[in-house]
């Protein structure tokens, strides 16, 4: 009976994983399929992967994505960390208001955020790569704040006072005492901002303007035109990247817990 119970629970777990990952598995399998068909297995090939670098549309979108993702996540990390430090110093009441306001972009439907940002940008600037970066910063900042703030709150004010007491200027105290303490939070905030920006389709789609394509918007437009197995290969690579980032973030978290005991 006990054996049966265990077997059943493993089967259940297996089914959950199967349903969760089956679609991605199909994608990965098709990316190695030596046939244009979506249903027939034509043998193993790496040609779709090898074709990627010579495809201008894909490479162009890749570099656009990297530029947007890197610049927006770095800027969002700087802004979000500064914001967290500010919120941490605020009076409780004011901090609650700020945090509430920070929550709005997280809860808001992406499409609404996308449309409103588009309207804003068409009025005050033009749509293009720059407006996408701005939009990505806007939705990434909250993730950074929520990663950094708990680290700040668990840090005792006395440490900062001790640094000042020992002769540190406020800037020196920040780099030598505050930053090393909150760095794990800053890093995981950055990784989240990076992943969010990399993944985003909806907001990017509305704010990008003509001629600019990130990987996700490019995939969308290209897949509508017809079957291109190169895109499966690209999607597989994107999935792998996100997967690696996820493991990196979790691994950091696990390490930290061990140190704290």
């Amino acid at each position, binding site marked *: 009976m006990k054996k049966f119970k265990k077997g059943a629970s493993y089967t259940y777990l297996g089914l959950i994983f199967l349903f969760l990952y089956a679609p991605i598995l199909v994608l990965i399998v098709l990316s190695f399929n030596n046939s244009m068909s979506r249903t027939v297995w034509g043998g193993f090939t790496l040609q779709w992967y090898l074709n990627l670098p010579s495809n201008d549309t894909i490479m162009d979108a890749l570099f656009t994505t990297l530029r947007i993702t890197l610049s927006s996540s770095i800027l969002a990390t700087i802004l979000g960390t500064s914001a967290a430090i500010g919120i941490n110093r605020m009076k409780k009441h004011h901090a609650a208001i700020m945090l509430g306001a920070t929550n709005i972009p997280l809860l808001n439907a992406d499409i609404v955020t996308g449309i409103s940002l588009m309207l804003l940008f068409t009025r005050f600037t033009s749509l293009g790569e720059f407006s996408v970066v701005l939009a990505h910063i806007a939705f990434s900042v909250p993730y950074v704040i929520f990663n950094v703030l708990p680290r700040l709150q668990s840090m*005792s004010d*006395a440490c900062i*006072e*001790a*640094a*000042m*007491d*020992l002769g540190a200027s406020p800037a020196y105290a920040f780099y*030598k005492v505050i930053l090393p303490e909150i760095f794990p939070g800053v890093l995981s905030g950055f990784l989240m901002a990076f992943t969010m920006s990399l993944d985003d389709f909806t907001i990017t789609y509305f704010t990008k303007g003509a001629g600019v394509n990130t990987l996700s918007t490019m995939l969308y437009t290209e897949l509508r035109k017809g079957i291109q197995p190169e895109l499966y290969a690209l999607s597989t690579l994107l999935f792998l990247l996100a997967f690696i980032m996820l493991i990196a973030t979790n691994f950091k978290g696990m390490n930290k817990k061990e*140190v704290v005991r």
Partner: protein
Amino acid sequence: MEFIQYDHVSKSYGKQLVLDELNLYVKENSFVTLLGPSGCGKTTTLRLLGGFEKPDSGKIYLNGNDITALPANLRPINTVFQKYALFPHMTIAENIAFGLKIQKKSKEYIDDKIKYALKLVNLDGFEKRSIDSLSGGQQQRIAIARAIVNEPKVLLLDEPLGALDLKLRQSMQYELMKIKQELGITFIYVTHDQEEALTMSDTIVVMNQGYIQQIGTPEDIYNEPENAFVADFIGESNIIEGIMIKDELVSFLGVQVPCVDKGFGTMKPVDVVIRPEDVELGEPGKGFMDGVITDCLFKGVHYELDVQCGQYEWLVHTTKYFEVGQHVSLNVIPFNIQIMNKPESEDEEVMKEND
């Protein structure tokens, strides 16, 4: 001008007045303890000197220089914090070197200083250890080492032993006194523990509700409390309302007892303070009043007795055992009767009622 001077310093947080026109002088090389219950303003007084708070009004002078507006990092003063406040991501050596690196001292100088400081706090060879691997007492010693390597003119200690257990606290008291002697600098110490204050200080400043109640040597404070608050806060006391009939004669609880105090006037209401260890118990009828033992607790060094005399219950410390229900007489030699003026400020009165 004195070494450290608070000149009419006031400070409030929001609507709450924490310090009201505080004036305080501290001599160079002294060990001064600010003593009082929580919320009395002692920590604020210390933080004002450290530069972590700015007074609302008044000035603070160090060595004749006005340091009121000087930020904490520019004051020749270092602090040992209650919760150690060590930097968790640095080793012990890096923690101690923090201030010296800011002063851009040479590596040899810093290494020497770290060695010296660790030796002084009895933690030789701990340079490479991490903060996490230390006990509370060890962490506090590192915090002391980190402060003193900078050779401050004044060391501020904010309840540094508050988080330690009794035994460790006592041994740290002796170590602190030793360190003080070795360094020859001014220590300003904040505590609510009267025993700590009595053991270590040259001068005790008793504070309550933002006012200084009494300044004096530990002996003065204990033996000659100036008001009921001080008497009650320092050690245990029998505080009884009485009337000073004339010089050297006081009346309380319906009896007249000779004392040694003069100059209170005649028929003046006063508070009479008698320490529990100064009350002598004898056979009924042989003292100034009789009573019944209502409680007897063993406290190690002595027994703690409650003696009911009419309406008043005396607290008495004695090394002899008495049965509950036993009839005894109470006696006090005139020298051990301390007469105090009735409290004049309302705050003192409030404190007394709260206790």
